């Protein structure tokens, strides 16, 4: 077992533990906003660790390039999805996403009821 293998194993162990812990966090948290905090490690940190592990093992190759491309989409798309989800949750809850939402009883935007 070389140093590269050990480094890849450590990175993979960290990524797997992070994903497992965050997944349990999603299960045990109480509401949508708290659960969303646990998506961030899965969508941002774990892909970087996995990408580094593949890079350490394979070096710069077609495989590692495609790995980084896939994980780049996850890393870039994660915050956008989180933001859109928070916005949707707030609109469903308050009727509007702005800070003043909930102070007046406006009907939800885009809905007929």
């Amino acid at each position, binding site marked *: 077992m070389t140093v590269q293998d050990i480094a890849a194993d450590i990175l993979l162990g960290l990524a797997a533990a992070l994903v*497992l812990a965050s*997944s349990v966090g*999603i299960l045990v948290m109480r509401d*949508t906003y708290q659960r969303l905090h646990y998506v961030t490690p899965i969508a941002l940190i774990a*892909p970087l660790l996995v990408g580094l592990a593949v890079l350490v093992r394979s070096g710069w190759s077609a495989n590692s390039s*495609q790995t980084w491309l896939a994980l780049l989409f*996850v890393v870039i798309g994660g915050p956008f999805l989180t933001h*859109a989800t928070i916005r949707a949750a707030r609109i469903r809850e308050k009727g509007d996403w702005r800070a003043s939402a909930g102070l007046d009883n406006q009907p939800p935007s885009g809905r007929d009821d």
Partner: protein
Amino acid sequence: MNAFVIAAIVMLVAVIPCGIVVVRGKVMDAVVAYEAVSSIVVMALVLLAEGFRRSGEFELPVLLAVLLFGSGLVLVRFLERWL
């Protein structure tokens, strides 16, 4: 079985708590769990492709990452306005 395959299996095990949230939680909670599952599945596919040394299978997570990002935004937009 190498470390990459073991890590992929652990990540697939991590889908189970998210699946419980999808089945038992409210709609927005299920969406959050779905987003987590989509990221986990992309990583698991990368790890399996690397673990089994199959170069052709690296294209699947790339496509899946793009499609899941787009579908997630569409789903959230529908939930925001109509569902």
